[in-house]
């Protein structure tokens, strides 16, 4: 798992339901607790779709605001996590489409802008190690399909169980296990190749 970050321990469905009911009554403190418990889950889902940490952070923020506004629409308070993941996936898909459209428009409008960006990437003062690491993970994860990638990020970043992932993604736990197993093998091959390449 990643570096330790101050986070609230995972909530049981009953605790989640209690917090949701309190938040519905306008208790913003209860909703903040829900944010603490589900932020990593939301980030994982957003990152699975967008493959960009900053964009994932933006979408996660927006998703929680949307969830606060629409909390009265949630029929089953115990299913807050899965419901939130649905909001995150929708927002992330919108964000992805918008980003794609904007980048294609920019490319058509101003090719010089993109040419100017190349020297920045080649800046020797840049943290090459970090860039390589990011590149490696992006390539490895990018090779997976969206569902598998989201499942992998939820498992490895959020520590989510197959049941939690299955609820968030609308698949059976067995299907999630199968996808995770296949994705792990693919990632292993890809990352091992990179490690071997680095060692040479």
């Amino acid at each position: 798992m990643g570096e330790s970050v101050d986070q609230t321990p995972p909530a049981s469905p009953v605790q989640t339901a209690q917090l949701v009911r309190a938040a519905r009554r306008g208790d913003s403190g209860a909703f903040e607790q829900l944010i603490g418990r589900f932020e990593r889950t939301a980030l994982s889902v957003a990152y699975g779709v967008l493959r960009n940490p900053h964009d994932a952070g933006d979408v996660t923020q927006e998703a929680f605001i949307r969830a606060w506004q629409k909390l009265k629409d949630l029929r089953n308070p115990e299913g807050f996590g899965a419901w939130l993941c649905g909001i995150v996936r929708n927002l992330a898909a919108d964000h992805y489409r918008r980003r794609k459209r904007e980048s294609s428009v920019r490319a058509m409008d101003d090719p010089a802008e993109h040419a100017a960006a190349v020297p920045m990437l080649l800046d020797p003062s840049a943290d090459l190690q970090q860039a390589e690491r990011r590149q490696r993970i992006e390539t490895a994860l990018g090779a997976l399909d969206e569902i598998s990638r989201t499942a992998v990020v939820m498992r490895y970043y959020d520590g989510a169980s197959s049941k939690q992932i299955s609820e968030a993604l609308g698949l059976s736990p067995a299907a999630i296990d199968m996808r995770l197993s296949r994705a792990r093998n693919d990632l292993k091959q890809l990352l091992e190749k990179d490690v071997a390449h680095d060692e040479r």
Partner: protein
Amino acid sequence: MNDKTDEIDVTLGALLGRELDPQCGRARTRFRAEMWQAEQAHRLGRRGWMMTAAGSALAACVGLVISFTTMRQLSQQPAGVLSPASPGRLIDPANAVAASSGLSAPSSLERNVYWRTVDDGTIQRDDESAVHQLRQQLFEKVRWYDPRHDATIELTRPREQTIQVEVPRQ
């Protein structure tokens, strides 16, 4: 699971942590900011409503006083109109018509006073103090029939007074 797979698991977790951990906490900060903004908007709305209510009450009082005064004046004084030659001075329309035509007083005379209050809301003065501003607009209209010229003459005199109520500083 063999050792190599475990190593990949750990590496992947660490890499994802480095990518996504810096994003943790942004949602809570944004939510708090949204709550604060909503609270401020609610407070301003409530204060605005109270100011509007106070302003309306004040305007109603001013309106009552003016209409009462006007009614008293109408009942005590003869009707007068503004002389076009000397604006601001009231003359008796009957005398005016009689003097200009040499005929008897006009047969029909009508005098109306209309008023309304415009609430400008809270405005900033030059000394940066805030005041709630109301403008009392008054229209005095006098109309009579001139038999000599077989014409209806109408004179209107607009007036405006501004009332400023100081808004206490927070």
